[in-house]
């Protein structure tokens, strides 16, 4: 290397590079640490458990990433999971497919309400989805009669506990959804419109984009993904408890999206970053549990990670 070349690790370069790829570096370091210092970290059974635990968060976070890409937020995802879970035992008698379809329809309805409130009525996303956050879980508990219901249907349980090509079906579904959403964001007109609206809504309106339709679709997609996560959660734990399914998942999902480098200001969606964000948080929790650290410490570390991620990713404003 000659002295005339610019240094490879100049400060401004790192500043630009860190927000985009910092999360991958963090995962790499954490994995390295675990390989060296954690017993049985590379055991297949451990990797399996980590993947199964992270799958529902990834699925919900994908939808959240799309909503955040439009400069919105969806607080109702946990309630949607509970609603989807509440419908499963009620309709399983009509067949697995019927139960899943009914649960998905519940997701569509919630998403439609959120979307209409945001796009047509013009409410702030946080308030619009707050209403269903409050009401949705209550409704789910009312529907399920406030009881935990066991689910014994073999075909249905396969979704949550079965294997396909040595990997859990749950993980396959999550991976498939990641690919679909990544394709939609990068390669479709809908994806382009979504990013345009998130970047500058008035300009998109003036450019003649169907802003309302795109926004409503985004909220529906987010809710449907949440209800898929709810269905899979029921299939995994083999029972439906509307008061527990998806509790506080909105926080995990938002964290995954933000840590993955998607700005809250909209106009940008990092799909793979979101997956990495969810994996990172999962790894952090797993590492601390393996080293006998208390949940209290884990939570405080999570708080610091969120702050650092957002601080690093914060767009330098021209002001």
């Amino acid at each position, binding site marked *: 290397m000659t002295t005339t070349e610019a240094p490879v690790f100049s400060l401004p370069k790192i500043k630009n590079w860190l927000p985009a790829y910092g999360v991958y570096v963090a995962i790499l370091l954490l994995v390295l640490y675990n390989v060296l210092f954690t017993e049985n970290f590379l055991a297949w059974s451990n990797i399996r458990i980590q993947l199964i635990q992270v799958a529902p968060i990834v699925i919900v976070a994908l939808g959240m990433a799309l909503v955040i890409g439009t400069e919105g937020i969806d607080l109702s995802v946990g309630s949607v999971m509970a609603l989807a879970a509440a419908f499963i035992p009620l309709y399983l008698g009509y067949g697995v497919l019927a139960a899943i379809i009914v649960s998905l329809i519940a997701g569509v309805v919630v998403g439609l309400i959120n979307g209409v409130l945001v796009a047509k009525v013009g409410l702030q996303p946080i308030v619009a989805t707050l209403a269903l956050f409050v009401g949705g879980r209550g409704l789910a508990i009312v529907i399920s009669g406030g009881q935990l219901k066991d689910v014994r249907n073999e075909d249905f349980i396969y979704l949550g506990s079965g294997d396909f090509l040595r990997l859990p079906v749950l993980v396959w579904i999550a991976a498939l959804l990641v690919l679909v959403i990544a394709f939609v964001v990068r390669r479709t007109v809908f994806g382009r419109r979504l990013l345009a609206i998130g970047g500058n809504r008035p300009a998109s309106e003036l450019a003649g984009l169907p802003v309302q339709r795109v926004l409503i679709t985004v909220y529906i997609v987010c809710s449907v993904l949440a209800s898929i996560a709810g269905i899979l959660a029921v299939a995994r734990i083999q029972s439906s408890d509307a008061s527990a399914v998806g509790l506080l998942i909105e926080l995990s999902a938002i*964290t995954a999206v933000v840590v993955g480098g998607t700005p809250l200001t909209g106009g940008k969606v990092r799909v793979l970053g979101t997956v990495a964000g969810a994996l990172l948080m999962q790894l952090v929790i797993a590492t601390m549990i393996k080293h006998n650290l208390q949940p209290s410490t884990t939570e*405080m570390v*999570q708080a610091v990670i969120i702050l650092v991620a957002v601080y690093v990713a914060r767009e330098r404003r021209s002001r």
Partner: protein
Amino acid sequence: MSQQVVTGPEVPAAVVQADLRRAERTDRIVGTIQRQGALAVLIVIVIIAAASFPNFRSYDNAATILIAAAPPMLIALGMTFVIITGGIDLSVGSLYVLGGVVSAYASQWGLIAAFIAPLLVCGTIGLINGLLIAYTRMAPFIVTLAALLGARGLMRAISSEGSETYLVKSSAFRSFGNGSWLDIGYPVWLVAVLVLLGILLLARTRFGHAVYAVGGSQDAASLMGIAVRRTQVTVYIMSGLLAGLAGAINAAKLGSGVTVLGSGMELDAIAAVVIGGTLLTGGAGTVAGTIAGVLLLGVIQNMINQIGNVQSNWQQVISGAFLAVVVVAQTYLARMRRVT
């Protein structure tokens, strides 16, 4: 509602005048509904409840509602200031729980410590929130989300991972929570005084004006020479302090620091503030509206308890539906004012 103001050579000036006056009146009425809507609904619901449930009319029941509303009222008071500056504070639910645990723990050193300790801890977290939001320009939503997790972790750390419930040792502190003066509980008096101070602070002081100005436009406020950052830091400290105090009051009432996770208090507070007519976009809102919003949610809960055989889960459904109706109505009212 929007009256077409017809102008033209053949229309007498008096008619135009009358039309203008009518438009002005509509504007005023709509504005009043927007500001006092929660109060109006509260009055209607109280009348309905009093007519349908004999137990609702009793003095004891009114006292129950007020005592139950005391902690949420304090949290919503702080939230009102934060939201008017255009921010949001998601950490108050965790701070409320943390404040309760700290207060119960500190009560072994007496009444004063039981108040000072939670204020110190929660005020510090509020200060950190405010500094991060004001000086790094990170989104309030994210900063206070992290504080929610951090405060919850802290609460678990001092309570042996949530397994240890500290009992309130100071009998003076316990009697503060359960005693009363003139048949009204001490906590209600304390909250009433603080809410009154809040009203005066927001409406009558330089600081209050700064809060509105920052929420209206940070850039304009800073050009006007308002200390934007100091105002922001102050409102988050206030929010933290009030959440901690609410936790202390709850600990005094229950006689212990209960270590529940995810109290959901922050979202109840936001709902109450929004129902009270404060706009989440910042720059507009009143403490009086927030009082009505908190009482409204409290009365709805009380009514559902009165019905008894209805599942308590309906309360969430009704609160959620109510929130949706109120915010949608508010948006349309705001739009109507702009048209006229």
